[in-house]
C-alpha cells in the first residue's frame, strides 16, 4: 500500500510538471522528413482584393522544384491550400523572408505583420523585403538556373545585417514592428527590383505608418544609411568630384531650439579618400581643403533635399521626434510632432574629417 501511494505521488508530480508548464499533450507532428518548412513567402496583390501567396516547393530538398501560388483572401488560408496540393505538410517555423510587392505595400501591410507577429512558430528575425515587379515570374525563370535562389537571397540579407555593413537596408520583423508601433518613428524596408538580369537592390522604402509612400535610391539611399541606418559606409562614391570616400563613419548631433522651429542637424564624418581621378593636387593642403568644402556643400544639399522630402511626406524614419523629449515633462503627441516637423526649418551641417592617406602622401614632394 505504501509503495502504491509512493508511485501514485510520483505520477501526480510528473503529470503536474507537464500540465502546469503548459506543455500540451497533443503535439503536432514535426518530424523533419514529413514536413516542408518553407523558407520564404512572396505576397502580392491578387484579383478582387485578394492576396497572391507564392513560394518555391519543395523547399530545402534537392527534388525538382516548382513555384506554387494561390490566390486567397487570408494569408493562412494560402498555406492551408498548399497542403492540399502537396504531399508534405507546409510549416512556417523555418521562414526567413517575407517578400511583399510594392503595390501591396502602398495599401498597407499592418494585417500581414500582425499575422506574423501572433504566430509563435514564426521567428521575429525574418527579413521583410519590398519587391518591385512580378516576382512569381522571376521565380519561375530562376528554377532551372539557380536551385537555391531563396537560400542565396537569404544569405545576402544576413550578411549585410550582421555588423552593419552599410550597403543595404536590412530590416527584420522585430525592428519593423518596433518602428511601426513606437511613437515618433516610421518604418522603412529595403526595396528590390526585378530586372532582366536578376533581383537588384534599389533603395529604401519609407513608410507612413504601414503604408509605403516613397522609395529613396542611389545617393539619397547612401545618405540614409550614413545618417540613420548604419552610420557606416564602406564606400561613398561622389561622381561630381570624381572622388570615392571610403570607410565613412558618421556621428549625428541634433539640436532643436526651444521654440521647436529650427533644427540643426550636424553630421560629423570620419573618412578617407579611397580613389581620386580629378585634377586637384590632393597633397596640397589648400586644395584638399577646397575639395572637402565642396563635398560638404554637396552632401548638405542632398541631405537637405532628402529631409525636405520626408517633411513633405510627413514621415520620420530618422526618429527626430525623440529629440523633443525632455526630462520631467509630458512627451509631445505624435500628431503634434508631425505637424511641427512639417513646418520645421532644418539646417544641415556636415563636418568632414579626411584622414591622410598613404597613397596621397607617397606623391608628396620631399622638402
Amino acid at each position, binding site marked *: 500500500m505504501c509503495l502504491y501511494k509512493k508511485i501514485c505521488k510520483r505520477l501526480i508530480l510528473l503529470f503536474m510538471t507537464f500540465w502546469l508548464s503548459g506543455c500540451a499533450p497533443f503535439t503536432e507532428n514535426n518530424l523533419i522528413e514529413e514536413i516542408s518548412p518553407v523558407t520564404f513567402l512572396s505576397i502580392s496583390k491578387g484579383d478582387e482584393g485578394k492576396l497572391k501567396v507564392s513560394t518555391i516547393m519543395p523547399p*530545402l530538398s534537392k527534388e525538382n522544384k516548382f513555384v506554387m501560388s494561390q490566390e486567397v483572401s487570408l494569408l493562412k488560408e494560402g498555406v492551408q491550400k498548399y497542403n492540399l496540393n502537396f504531399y508534405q505538410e507546409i*510549416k512556417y517555423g*523555418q521562414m526567413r523572408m517575407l517578400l511583399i510587392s510594392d503595390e501591396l505595400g502602398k495599401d498597407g501591410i499592418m494585417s500581414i505583420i500582425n499575422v506574423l507577429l501572433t504566430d509563435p512558430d514564426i521567428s521575429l528575425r525574418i527579413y521583410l523585403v519590398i519587391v518591385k515587379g512580378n516576382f512569381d515570374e522571376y521565380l519561375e525563370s530562376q528554377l532551372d538556373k539557380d536551385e537555391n535562389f531563396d537560400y542565396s537571397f537569404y544569405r545576402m540579407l544576413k550578411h549585410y545585417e550582421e555588423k552593419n555593413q552599410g550597403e543595404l537596408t536590412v530590416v527584420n520583423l522585430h525592428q519593423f514592428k518596433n518602428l511601426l508601433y513606437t511613437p515618433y518613428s516610421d518604418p522603412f524596408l529595403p526595396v528590390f527590383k526585378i530586372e532582366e538580369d536578376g533581383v537588384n537592390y534599389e533603395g529604401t522604402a519609407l513608410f507612413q505608418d504601414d503604408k509605403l509612400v516613397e522609395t529613396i535610391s542611389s545617393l539619397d539611399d547612401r545618405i540614409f544609411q550614413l545618417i540613420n541606418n548604419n552610420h557606416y559606409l564602406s564606400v561613398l562614391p561622389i561622381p561630381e568630384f570624381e572622388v570615392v570616400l571610403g570607410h565613412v563613419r558618421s556621428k549625428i548631433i541634433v539640436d532643436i531650439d526651444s521654440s521647436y522651429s529650427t533644427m540643426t542637424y550636424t553630421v560629423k564624418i570620419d573618412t578617407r579618400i579611397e580613389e581620386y581621378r580629378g585634377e586637384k593636387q590632393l597633397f596640397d593642403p589648400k586644395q584638399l581643403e577646397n575639395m572637402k568644402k565642396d563635398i560638404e556643400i554637396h552632401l548638405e544639399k542632398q541631405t537637405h533635399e532628402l529631409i525636405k522630402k520626408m517633411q513633405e511626406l510627413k514621415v520620420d524614419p530618422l526618429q527626430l521626434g525623440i529629440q523633443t523629449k525632455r526630462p520631467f515633462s509630458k512627451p509631445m503627441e505624435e500628431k503634434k510632432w508631425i505637424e511641427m516637423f512639417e513646418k520645421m526649418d532644418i539646417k544641415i551641417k556636415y563636418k568632414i574629417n579626411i584622414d591622410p592617406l598613404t597613397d596621397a602622401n607617397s606623391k608628396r614632394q620631399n622638402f
Partner: protein
Amino acid sequence: MFWKKKRIESKLAAQSIAESELSIEALKKSLVQMDDAEFVEIDVSDIRKIHLVYIRTLIDQEKLNESIIKPLTNCSKPDLQDCIVNSSIIPIPIFIEAKKQLFSGSILLFDSSQNLWLAVPLQNPIGRAIETSETETILFGAKDSFSEQIEQNITLIRRRLPIHELKAEKFTVGSMSETSVVLMYIEGLTNPDFVSTVKEKISEINFDLFFDSSQIAAFMEENQNSIFPQLQQTDRPDVVAYSLGLGKITLLVDNTPFALVAPITFFHLFQSPEDYINRWAVSSFLRILRYISFILSITLIPFYVALTTHHYQMIPIQTLLVLVDSRSKLPFTPFWEAFIMLIFIEIIKEASLRMPTKTGQTLGVIGGIVIGQAAVEAGFASNVLIVMVGISTIASFLIPNYLMTKANSFIQLMLLVFSSLFGIIGIALGIIAILAHLNSLSSIKQPYFSPVSPFFGKDWIDLFIRGPLDKMLERPKHLKPLKLKRYKTRR
C-alpha cells in the same frame, strides 16, 4: 523439533573438532583427499623426530629447503626455536589456529620430544610483478601500479607516506574466501567519522565470497541502485597516497589490484592523476574539456532527436539543408535511427573489450566500415547522425573513470527516450532528474555533490579547474580533515 536437535548436534560436533587436541592424526584426518598436503618426517638426531606439515602449493619449496630442512638437519641444539633463525616462528596452541596457519601458507613443525607445535610462514611468492597501470594510463608521472598481493600494495603506499600516523587496520571478510581487507587512513588528519563508518560497514558484511574490491564497494555504498560509483577504484599508488594525504580513507582488498578510495564526489570522476603533473593552466583546460565532453556525450544525440522530431524551427537553415537531404530517404524515425546506432556502438564497444588484441583490429575496421559507410549507403542512418555518434562516443572516453564511461551510455539512452517523447523539455527534465539523483547520493555518508552542494567555495580551486599548487594551501573542506592547513608554518 527434529531439525533443531540436529542443528545442536552439528554445533557440538564442530566444537569438538575445534577443541580437539592438536595431533598429526587429527590433521591427517582433516586433510584427507588433499593431494597437495604433505606430511614429512625428518630425523634430526636419533632421539628427535620432527614432523613437517604443509600444503605444497601454498609454500615456497626452495625456501623450505634453505631455511628449514637444512638448518634442522645440521642442528644440534636442544631447542627447536633456536635452530631456525632466519624465519619468524609462531607457537600454536590449538587445532583451529593450526589450520588457519596451514592454509595461509605456513609450515607446521611438530617436535614430538617436546610436544611442541610451531608455524613458520613461508608463503609462495607467486604473483604479478609491479607493472604499469593499464586502466589509468598517464604519460608522465609514476608508472607503478598495484598488484594482487596486498602486502606489496601496502609497501607501495608506505613508501610514499613514510609517517607513523598512517594506520593500516586489517579485517577479514567473506565466510568462504576469508579475504583480508586493509583499511588505511592517516590518524589525526582523516575525519574519525569516516573511519568509524567504514569499520561499521565492514563489520556488517555478511557474504561468502569476495574476489574483487568492487564487491566490497557494493557493500560500502549507500545507494546500490545508482549508476554512479560511490567509491573510487584505482590501481595507482600515487592516487591513493594523494587521497590519503587529503584526508580520505583507503580500502585495500587482497587479491585485487584495485584499491577503494572514499569519500568521493561526482567531480572526482573527472579528475585524472595527470592533472597534478601538467602545468596548471593546461590541466585546468583539460579538466573543463572533460566536463564539456561529458555533457556533449550525453546530450548531443538526444538534442539531434529532439530537434528533428519536435523542434525543426531551431535548426540553423544551413544544417537543415543537409538534414532534409540526408533524412528524406531513411526508413526509421530519428529516435529509432539513433537508438539502433547507439546500441550498435555499445555492442562494438563491449565486443572489442572481450576480443583478443589481434582480432580487435578486425573488429575496429568492420565496425568502422559498417557503421560509418555502409549504414549511410544502405540508407539506414543519416550521415549527420553518424558524425554525432562518433563525436559523442569519443567524447565519452575522455572521462578518466571507466565506471563513469559505462554510466554515460546509460544516461544517454535515458535522455534519448525523453527527448523523443517530450523534445527539449524532456532533455531538461532528464537532466534535472539526474541532478536531483546526484544530490541525493552519498559516499560513506558524505554528500556526493559537494563542494557544489553543499557549497564550499574554497574547494573550487581544485574542482572545475586545477589551480596552482602553491595556492592550494588548504585541504578540501568538504572532506572535513582534522588538519586544514597543508603547510607547517607560513613564510
